[in-house]
């Protein structure tokens, strides 16, 4: 699933390691999320939405 994580992260000037620490996951998890190869669970998606102060659908793009 496509998402705007990389853009949002760059806007805040965070490294993948910074975002990983804020979300309490590994850097590899951040990488897998950003490339769209791994879709997060609802709890993790809400956690990301809270961190970036945006609704989930503004971060993860519904292509249906």
């Amino acid at each position, binding site marked *: 699933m496509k998402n705007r994580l990389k853009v949002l992260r760059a806007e805040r000037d965070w*490294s*993948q*390691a910074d975002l990983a620490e804020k979300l*309490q*996951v*590994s*850097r*590899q*998890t951040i*990488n*897998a*999320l950003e*490339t769209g*190869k*791994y879709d*997060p*669970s609802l709890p*993790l998606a809400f956690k990301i939405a809270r961190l970036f102060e945006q609704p989930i659908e503004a971060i993860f793009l519904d292509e249906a």
Partner: protein
Amino acid sequence: MDDDLKPKRIQWTLFFAGAAALAAVPFWLAFARPFGGTAMLVAMFVWLLVYMAYVYVGSSRLKAGRIGPVMKRYRSRLAVAMMAYFLFLIGSLSLLRGGEITGPLLWIVAAAPAIPILGVLVVMGLYLKEEPDEFERMIHVEAMLWGLGAVLGVSTVWGFLSNAGVVPSPPLFLVFPLFCLAWGFSQPIIRRRYQ
């Protein structure tokens, strides 16, 4: 910025080649039997210490601080269980060699080495339960399925071959190490797909 995520391919390849070579040693010991009796047990125990140290130190260095607290806890629990396994195994084998044990006690002594191995299963389950990173958890579950596939595949083929008398009957105690090997070695392949 993300350079540190690029896999250190050569180092990892060398690490896995070394691990594969070391992992072959107990299979060679079990089939070629270069030692007998106590020397065999000592050789196996030395191998276990070398292998655990190799995997522990090697992966810690390659991952350079990327091992979380839950994984650390899993590794210490696993080390304790494996030590217990070898102590139980040595105790059980030396008691059985005497040949004086019979009845229900024989059952207990013979099955004793399996207890720490069951403990390893519990340790694995606890890791999956405690791991807070859902992606890491998924990688491990997927790798365990590869392990299961390897065990089912190898034992099915081996079973039919031994039915025909082409090979000896399968050594069932090696099923668990095979599962662990396939679990470990499938991880880099699985992780690559998410990069």
